[in-house]
C-alpha cells in the first residue's frame, strides 16, 4: 500500500515540480532533452571515475537550481538505483580478479581493487544517468517531452508508446491502490506472510488485465478526438537567447566530459 502511495505521489510531484519556476523549467524542452542526454552519454563513455563524479555533481547542482529537492532525489532515485545496481555490483567486488584490498573477516572473501573500481563505475554511472533522466521528468511537462522527442525525429510509434506508457503506469497505480483499499476494507487483522504473497500474486493478473483494458479505452478516447500519433500542443517551442546559451553550455560540458574521460 505504502509503495503504491509513493508511486502516485511521485507522479503528482513530477507534475507540480515541472511547473515550478527553476532554472531548467525555463529552458526549451528540446534543449533539456538534448543537453541532459548528452551528459548521460558523456558519463557512460567516461573511463575516469572523477569525470563521472563531476557530471554527477553537475546534475546535483542543476537539481538545486531547479528547485528539485535532494530528499526527493534520494528517495525516488538514489536509494532505488543503489539497491538495483548494488545487486549486480556487489558480487563484482569479490569476483573480479586483481589486487586484494580488504578481506571480510568472517566470510574470508576478498575485495579486489579491480572489483571495487568496476562496482564504483557501474553504480556511479547508473546514479548519474538516473538523476539526469529524473531532472528531465521533474522539470518538463510530459507532453512537452513527447513533443520534443518528435521534433528531434524520434519515430511517431515510439513517442505514442511512451505517451501511453506514462498514462498506463498512472492507471495501474490508481487501480492497484483502489483494489488494495477495497481488500483492506474487507479484511480484519494482519494476514500471514504466505497468505499476503498468495493474494498479491492472484491480484497481479487481474490488475494487469483491468489496467490494459482502461489503457485501451484511453487510446480510443484519444483517437476519437483526432489523435493520429503526432503530438500537437498549444505551446510553441521557441528558442530564446538563454536556450541557445544553455545548449552551447551543455554541448561544451558534454564534450569536455568525453575528452577528459577518454
Amino acid at each position, binding site marked *: 500500500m505504502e509503495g503504491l502511495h509513493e508511486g502516485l505521489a511521485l507522479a503528482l510531484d513530477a507534475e507540480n515540480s515541472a511547473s515550478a519556476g527553476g532554472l531548467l523549467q525555463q529552458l526549451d524542452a528540446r534543449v533539456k532533452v538534448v543537453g541532459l542526454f548528452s551528459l548521460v552519454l558523456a558519463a557512460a563513455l567516461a573511463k575516469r571515475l572523477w569525470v563521472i563524479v563531476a557530471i554527477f555533481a553537475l546534475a546535483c547542482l542543476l537539481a538545486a537550481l531547479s528547485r528539485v529537492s535532494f530528499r526527493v532525489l534520494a528517495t525516488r532515485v538514489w536509494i532505488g538505483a543503489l539497491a538495483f545496481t548494488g545487486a549486480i555490483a556487489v558480487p563484482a567486488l569479490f569476483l573480479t580478479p586483481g589486487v586484494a584490498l580488504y578481506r571480510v573477516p568472517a566470510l574470508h572473501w576478498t575485495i579486489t581493487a579491480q572489483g571495487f573500481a568496476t562496482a564504483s563505475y557501474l553504480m556511479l554511472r547508473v546514479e548519474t544517468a538516473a538523476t539526469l533522466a529524473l531532472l528531465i521528468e521533474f522539470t518538463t511537462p*510530459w507532453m512537452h517531452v513527447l513533443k520534443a522527442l518528435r521534433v528531434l525525429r524520434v519515430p511517431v510509434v515510439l513517442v505514442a508508446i511512451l505517451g501511453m506508457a506514462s498514462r498506463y503506469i498512472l492507471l495501474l497505480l490508481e487501480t492497484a491502490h483502489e483494489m488494495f483499499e477495497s481488500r483492506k476494507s474487507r479484511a480484519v487483522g494482519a494476514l500471514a506472510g504466505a497468505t499476503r504473497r498468495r493474494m498479491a500474486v492472484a491480484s497481479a493478473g487481474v490488475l494487469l488485465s483491468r489496467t490494459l483494458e482502461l489503457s485501451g479505452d484511453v487510446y*480510443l*478516447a484519444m483517437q*476519437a*478526438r483526432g489523435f*493520429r500519433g503526432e503530438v500537437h500542443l498549444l505551446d510553441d517551442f521557441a528558442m530564446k537567447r538563454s536556450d541557445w546559451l544553455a545548449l552551447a553550455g551543455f554541448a561544451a560540458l558534454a564534450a569536455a566530459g568525453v575528452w577528459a574521460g577518454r
Partner: protein
Amino acid sequence: MLFETERLTYSYDRIAALADLSLAIAEGSRVALVGANGSGKSTLLRILDGLYFGQAGTVRFHGDELTEARFADDAFAFSFRRQVGLVFQNPDVQLFNPTVFDEVAFGPLQLGWSKSEVRERVSETLERFGIAHLADRVPHRLSGGEKKRVALASVLVLDPAVLLLDEPTAALDPRSQSQVIDLLVEWGGGAKSVITATHNLADLEDIADRCLVLDGGHVVADGAPAEILRDRDLLERTNLVHAHRHRHRSGELHSHPHVHSGDPEPGG
C-alpha cells in the same frame, strides 16, 4: 441517412455484443439507445464512432462504409472526427492532459485548428460549461461531476454535427445529472444529431425523440420515448424496470413495476 447498419455483428471472445443488428438513424434526430448492462449499447456507439469494426455486416455514415482501411486515410479520418464526437461513459479515460485547458484544447489541436482559434474557443467553452475556474487544474484529480463536465467540454468544443454519448449521467449526483442534461438540451438546439446510450429512463423524453431498446445485441423495440415508457412488459422483460416491493398498513405485501421517471405509475 446519417448512420445505417446492416446485419452488424460484434463479439468479445465469442460472447456476442451485437448480433445481426440492422438499423437506420436519420440526420438531425435525437435517438436514445436504451438497454440493461451488457445489451450492446456501448459497443454500438464505439462502432458508430469508427473505433471498433464489426466482424460481420456493414456500417455506413452518410453512405460511406466505415472500415479500418477507410480510417487509414488521413483525409477521411480527420473529416469524420470533425463531424462526430463521442463522450465515454468513464470520464477518466478521456482525461490524459496536464491541465483542464490543455484537455479541452486537445481535440481542436489534433484537428488542425489555428492556435488563436483554439485559445478563443476553449475559453468560451470553459465559460459555457461553468468550469473556467478549473482551467489550470489537473483533470484526473477533479470530482466526478467536474470530470464529466470537462469530458463533455473536451468533445463539445469541436461543435460536432453528431454527438454520441455513453451514459452521460452515470455515477453523478442528482444536481450534476441535471446540469449535464441541461447542457445537452441547450447544446443540441434541434439542428444536431445526438445518440445517447442510457438506462436512465427518467431523462428519456428530455434527450430523445426516438428510442431504440436493445437486448442481447438486438433491437427489440423502436418508438417514441413516451410509447416505450408505457410498455411495462417490454421494460420488465429487458430489465429496465424492477418490481418495487412494499408492505401496506394492512400488512399486505405488494409489488408493482417501478420506473424512475415522471410518468404516473400503474397501481400502487
